[in-house]
């Protein structure tokens, strides 16, 4: 990429090809937007160029915080092309004598073709309706002209998360021109020739003087190389731009900036994975010339908990934690946009900022530890949970009771019951610590750390993790970090905390709508489902009972009747269950519908739903065609049986052979254990032949009421075969359609 020189002339399939280079230079654009803006530029340009018959190829985009660059190969001219325009129908285009009519003359004039060039032809092949047509040869325009017309529309097409008025104006008929940040320069070159493009000032709502004109002049780094009197430089081609930028401390290619950062971090002993990999992505778009600086934290801070160090470093300073130094002092890596000499100051400055924050943190940490977690519960009376739902002290007392009561119902040991009651009572106490007031994202974490001083590990762990699970993946925290009694205590406390929140908010009529969920209720609901799916080890809780208990504990502040609240919470959680299954790709959406619509309460034990879904997905993938046929058959059976009252099957009343065969096949399938959904599903799949022949040869709605009743009973028994696993009629079938309708 670094070879300098003008653009090389190339020919492709006999046509001359030119290089188009476009650079939009601006004041620092927000880093998180850049990739998306580059994608927009790429797709918009490609679409416009293709539309304009420029045959764009090798379209590439690059970016830094101060520029977007596009380079592409395009035809030197638009392709010449033949266009057929259609006019009026034959009977209007010709008069009675067979001469062209006034209408046809008008059409020829409009199209700019001589009258004798008009033809009559069918619009569609083989049609007998003739229309007048004009075939026009369009000579392609030079690409420079075409682009000059298209560039304003491309500039205007960008979508920004937030756009700004910068008193600019585009002469494209639409006037005032907003953008993400002010544009400072434009390079637009077709094979080294400038493609004109001008942005004007907007003055008092009208076009003012020219402000930015496209040319061949790009700009290097703001500050490097040191001492340069002019940061600008002229280019003729992309390779000159790329080389010129490289010589001026601008690494244009984001992948190369990331590589440089990665090498820097690894050279400092760090690892670029997980959260650090995210930070590296962000760092790479903050500066044009990334240099990683390494900071060291004095050993006096070494006894701060790792969670505190990481919060200050990662969340507040966007730094990556490095392995500790030889003397045990914590180290970190931060990004700078400096050369090596400047990086020395940058490192010192970063250290200073980090140390100032850690000093605060250490002060808060030491102050907080002067009191036990238990002694803080009363202070929660001063913190409002929600104005209609009382204080956090009330919440703490409620969830403590909820946890104890639920532990009893599901038969947990006395030890766990006591532990969960205490953990729940203390779970919110860190809200009144200095540390959590300063670093709210450490809620839970600090409570767990402070509880260690006086409480057993299981209680401290339950407090530490009770805001989790947050993410939807099965291996997201705290998966794998807890076991035994600590796991059970955590699951209990985390569950009742979330249910208590949902009971309260739903109870006073607050529900999320659209994108608005200010109290995080969807996340709480998802957490409930995840706890029950991934962390619950014993007997599944009866959610209706928990709602009744929670409602009782809220007392008069929740006015909705218990029954209504129970069904509102059920609907809400069912929605979340579906969401979790979809997000995890646990099955296709029709499989999820089929399992959720089985004749079993899905909330009785969500683990069972997951198990049935897994089985359905697996067995169906073995026998896709069979299940498609069964879906049809079950839909049909369901429609026929719907609303009728059916009794037992009377084998003596069978008339057709297919009836007896289907009955025998059903009886055989019924012997497959119902508790093993996979084997039940395979057994049902085996009935498919008999079902098909039954529907082929038997008229269910027979005139004879005895025959009819008996056949309905047989179909109903067929449906019942797997109703406790899944409603197979909900599966998509080739005919159709209505996989999700009900």
């Amino acid at each position, binding site marked *: 990429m670094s070879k300098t020189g003008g653009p090389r002339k190339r020919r492709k399939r006999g046509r001359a090809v030119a290089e188009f280079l476009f650079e939009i230079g601006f004041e*620092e654009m927000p880093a998180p937007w850049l990739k998306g803006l580059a994608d927009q530029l790429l797709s918009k340009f490609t679409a416009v160029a293709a539309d304009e018959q420029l045959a764009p190829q090798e379209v590439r985009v690059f970016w830094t915080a101060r520029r977007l660059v596009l380079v592409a190969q395009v035809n030197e001219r638009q392709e010449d092309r033949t266009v057929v325009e259609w006019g009026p129908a034959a009977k209007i285009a010709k008069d009675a004598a067979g001469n062209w009519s006034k209408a046809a003359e008008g059409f020829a004039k409009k199209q700019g073709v001589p009258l004798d060039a008009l033809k009559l032809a069918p619009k569609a092949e083989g049609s007998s309706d003739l229309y007048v047509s004009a075939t026009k040869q369009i000579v392609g325009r030079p690409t420079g002209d075409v682009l000059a017309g298209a560039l304003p529309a491309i500039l205007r097409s960008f979508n920004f998360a937030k756009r700004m008025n910068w008193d600019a104006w585009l002469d494209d008929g639409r006037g005032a021109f907003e953008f993400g940040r002010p544009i400072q320069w434009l390079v637009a070159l077709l094979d080294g020739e400038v493609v004109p493009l001008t942005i004007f000032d907007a003055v008092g709502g009208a076009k003012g003087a020219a402000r930015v004109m496209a040319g061949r002049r790009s700009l290097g780094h703001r500050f490097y190389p040191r001492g340069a009197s002019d940061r600008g430089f002229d280019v003729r081609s992309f390779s000159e731009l790329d080389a010129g930028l490289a010589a001026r401390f601008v690494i244009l290619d984001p992948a190369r900036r990331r590589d440089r950062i990665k090498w820097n971090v690894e050279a400092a002993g760090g690892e670029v994975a997980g959260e650090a990999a995210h930070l590296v992505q962000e760092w790479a778009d903050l500066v044009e010339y990334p240099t990683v600086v390494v900071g060291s934290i004095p050993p006096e801070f070494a006894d701060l908990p790792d969670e505190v160090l990481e919060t200050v470093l990662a969340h507040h300073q966007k730094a990556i934690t490095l392995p500790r130094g030889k003397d045990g002092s914590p180290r970190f890596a931060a990004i700078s946009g400096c050369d090596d000499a400047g990086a020395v100051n940058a490192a010192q*400055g970063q250290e200073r900022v980090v*140390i*100032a924050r850690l000093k605060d943190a250490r002060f808060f940490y030491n102050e907080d530890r002067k009191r036990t977690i238990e002694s803080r519960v009363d202070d929660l009376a001063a913190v409002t949970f929600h104005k209609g739902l009382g204080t956090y002290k009330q919440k703490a007392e409620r969830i403590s009771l909820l946890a104890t009561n639920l532990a009893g119902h599901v038969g947990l040991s006395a030890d766990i019951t006591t532990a969960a009651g205490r953990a729940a009572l203390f779970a919110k106490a860190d809200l009144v610590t200095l540390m959590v007031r300063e670093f709210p994202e450490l809620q839970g974490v600090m409570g767990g750390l402070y509880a260690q001083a006086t409480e057993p590990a299981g209680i401290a762990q339950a407090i530490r993790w009770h805001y989790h699970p947050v993410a939807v993946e099965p291996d997201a925290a705290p998966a794998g970090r807890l076991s035994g009694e600590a796991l059970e205590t955590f699951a209990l406390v985390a569950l009742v905390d979330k249910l208590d929140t949902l009971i309260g908010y739903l109870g006073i009529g607050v529900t999320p709508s659209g994108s608005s969920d200010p109290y995080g209720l969807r996340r709480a609901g998802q957490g409930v489902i995840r706890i029950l799916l991934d962390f619950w080890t014993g007997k599944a809780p009866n959610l209706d009972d928990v709602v009744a208990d929670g409602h009782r504990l809220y007392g008069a502040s929740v006015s909705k009747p218990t029954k209504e609240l129970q069904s509102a919470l059920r609907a809400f959680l069912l929605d979340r269950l579906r969401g979790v299954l979809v997000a995890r790709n646990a099955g296709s959406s029709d499989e999820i519908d089929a399992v959720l619509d089985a004749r079993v309460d899905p909330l009785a034990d969500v683990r069972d739903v997951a198990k049935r879904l897994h089985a359905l997905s697996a067995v169906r993938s073995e026998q896709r065609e069979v299940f498609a046929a069964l879906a049809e058959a079950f839909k049909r059976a369901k429609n026929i049986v719907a609303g009728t009252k059916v009794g037992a099957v009377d084998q003596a009343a069978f008339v057709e052979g297919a009836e007896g065969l289907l009955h025998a096949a059903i009886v055989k399938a019924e012997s497959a254990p119902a508790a093993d959904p996979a084997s039940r599903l395979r057994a049902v799949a085996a009935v498919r032949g008999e079902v098909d022949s039954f529907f082929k040869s038997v008229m269910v709605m027979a005139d004879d009421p005895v025959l009819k009743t008996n056949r309905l009973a047989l179909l109903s028994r067929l449906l019942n075969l797997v109703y406790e696993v899944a409603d197979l009629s909900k599966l998509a079938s080739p005919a159709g359609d209505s996989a999700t309708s009900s």
Partner: protein
Amino acid sequence: MSLTLQGIIATLNSFWEKQGCLIQLGVDAEVGAGTMHPETFLRVLGPEPWRVGYVQPSRRPTDGRYGDNPNRVYKHHQYQVILKPAPANVQDLYLDSLRALGIEPADHDVRFEEDNWESPALGAWGIGWQVLLDGQEITQFTYFQQAGGVNLSPISAEITYGLERIAMYLQDKADMFDVEWGAGVLYRKVRHEEEFELSRYSFELADVDLHMKLFDGSLGEAKRLLETAGPRVSLAAYDWVLRASHAFNVLDARGGISVTQRASMLLQIRKLACAVAAAYVEDRWPAEAKETGARRG
């Protein structure tokens, strides 16, 4: 020799004066930020060009720490510059002002990082950056988009320097109170006692009922002025909005208001700030008031 705090102010005054700024004084009222000064809040309205620079002592009662915290104080000082319309080279001008202060950007990590400013109480927002100097935020840089609910045109650039932060950096001090205000005179000597007393007042002693009355009375007076027939009076009304805003800040620090009360008080301030802005525009440029969306009351 690194600059003292007063040396920094003198340097910025002289730098921005050369750029055609009037050098003004901070507003003689208790405000939380230089943006609330009429030289910013009102001058950015309407079509007339304006360039101004001033030091604004900024009171934020909730940030009071009795002088115990090295970074956070009840009252800090901002150097505020308004350039209207924003010149195309405004970032370069700013970087030159850092050079004037002895900060050569090539020797440091100087970065413009996205940080859009918004003041719900003033119905104002803008697009811009925080400027980081070796990881420390030293300046807020904003292209004003709206003030008092009025869409602005032309767009003003606002540059707000955090003077204490810059002084700490230049003098290599980890504690604000160790900064030299003038030669040999520490910030501690000038301000520490004030920090303690003002913190004590706003956290422990401020009379909640009195401040409630001040809040309501100030807003009432502003409203009455705006509704009074006769010649222009929006500047006087704005003074009362500032008083209401400070009363609110004291109540907030004192813990005298609930969350919902807080939201409703902020809304009342905003309504009046917007009404002042609308009156200011209408009085001066009646034809434009319609287009920019200015609305009284």
